[in-house]
């Protein structure tokens, strides 16, 4: 370090001498390299001025009076810049540490929330979930019940990022702890609500829908807790209809009853479930309305369910001023036989 500093100080002096004599570009370029090397070694701006003063004194011992004092004055003025520079340096290091910590957490979250699409003959399932930031506040899960029915859960924690992600693991654990026998959807939501209500801050909440599909009867029974409505595509009519049940979001009040409703699915019919990240997408100042989402889905009905959800997301991603405001999740279920 000592040597480095001495070396650069000499180099600076030589370059300065060269420049005083000839005012050439080469010396200017040289000093740029010197200053970059000094920055790399955390040499502060006031120290560079100090190098300058020393060099100048050695080159011209007759330097005196006001000019010399003015340089000392400038040196003092640079001290605050130096401090600011050091602070930025520290912040930069902290930011790198934080970033890597969050990406480790995001990776953990991915592992934790991994869910396997159930393999049901005659049922084609596609799902995509894209976080707005590194961590996802949306959640979906498939449950394979002992009686052959399939549970489908979709939830959206208010806000996004780390707090939402932490909150979501609560849903995951509660769902995992439910009995193996299938429960009616309102009972599932009721259980979750009890846990969430006790463990959540007063201005947070979770919207959720839970559905159960019975492959034998082709019936989908569902219950909503303040979640975005789903859409049911009736192939025979080539039309989407909204479906939902009324019910309060999870985490607000313990005394909530959830309703249940059902639909029967025929061949070619589709069930579309989503989070508000889909309906709150913006293209510049314009909000993307649900009709547009459904129109896009309709364009891709010839594809498999998984390709469909991916193409729908890609379609919005391609819009010129598209910004993902919130975590985006889309799930499509289609009866193929």
């Amino acid at each position, binding site marked *: 370090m000592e040597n480095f500093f001495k070396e650069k100080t000499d180099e600076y002096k030589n370059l300065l001498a060269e420049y005083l004599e000839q005012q050439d570009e080469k010396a200017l370029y040289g000093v740029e390299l010197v200053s970059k090397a000094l920055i790399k070694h955390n040499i502060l701006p006031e120290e560079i001025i100090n190098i300058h003063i020393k060099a100048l004194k050695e080159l011209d011992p007759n330097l005196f009076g006001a000019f010399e004092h003015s340089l000392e004055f400038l040196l003092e003025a640079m001290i605050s810049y130096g401090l600011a520079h050091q602070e930025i340096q520290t912040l930069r290091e902290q930011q790198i540490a934080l970033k890597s910590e969050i990406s480790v957490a995001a990776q953990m979250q991915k592992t934790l929330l991994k869910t396997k699409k159930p393999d049901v003959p005659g049922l084609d399932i596609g799902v995509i979930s894209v976080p707005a930031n590194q961590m996802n506040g949306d959640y979906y899960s498939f449950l394979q019940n002992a009686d052959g029915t399939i549970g489908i859960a979709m939830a959206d924690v208010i806000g996004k990022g780390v707090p939402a992600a932490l909150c979501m693991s609560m849903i995951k654990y509660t769902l995992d702890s439910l009995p193996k026998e299938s429960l009616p959807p309102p009972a599932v939501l009721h259980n979750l609500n009890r846990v969430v209500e006790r463990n959540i801050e007063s*201005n947070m909440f979770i919207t959720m829908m839970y559905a159960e599909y019975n492959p034998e009867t082709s019936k989908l029974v569902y219950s909503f807790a303040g*979640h975005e*409505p789903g859409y049911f595509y009736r192939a025979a009519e080539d039309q989407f209809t909204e479906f939902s049940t009324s019910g*309060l979001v999870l985490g607000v009040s313990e005394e909530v009853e959830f309703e249940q409703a059902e639909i029967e699915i025929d061949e070619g019919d589709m069930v579309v479930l989503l989070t508000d990240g889909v309906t709150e997408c913006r293209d510049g100042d314009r909000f993307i309305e649900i009709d547009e989402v459904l129109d896009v889905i309709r364009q891709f009905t010839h594809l498999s369910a998984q390709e469909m959800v991916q193409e729908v997301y890609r379609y919005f991603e391609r819009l010129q001023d598209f910004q993902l405001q919130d975590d985006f999740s889309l799930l499509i279920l289609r009866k193929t036989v």
Partner: protein
Amino acid sequence: MNLEITLTEEGNQSIIALAGEIDAYTVTNLKETFDSVTKKEGQEVIVDLEHVTYMDSTGLGVFIGALKSTKESDSELKLVNIQDRVYRLFQITGLDEIMDVKAAIRGGNE
């Protein structure tokens, strides 16, 4: 986009008039304003949302917090003049069932 907050207090009544967008960025000030009035006993807190054009779920969360806080202090929270887009949020989340919310009257101010 900003959120303008105008608080008028008169006796037991506090009127909070809002204008702009309520989202994760603007919600902090709103939360502070709510905290300053909803914790007082026996208050009637009226929030006028006529000029609120957008609200996200973080905004909704602050209203839930305010509702809980007014209940604890025996106060009342009323939301008035809510525009369609924002009102839909209250309906989907089922909050319209547990909160005193009134949509904006279309085609006039009577």
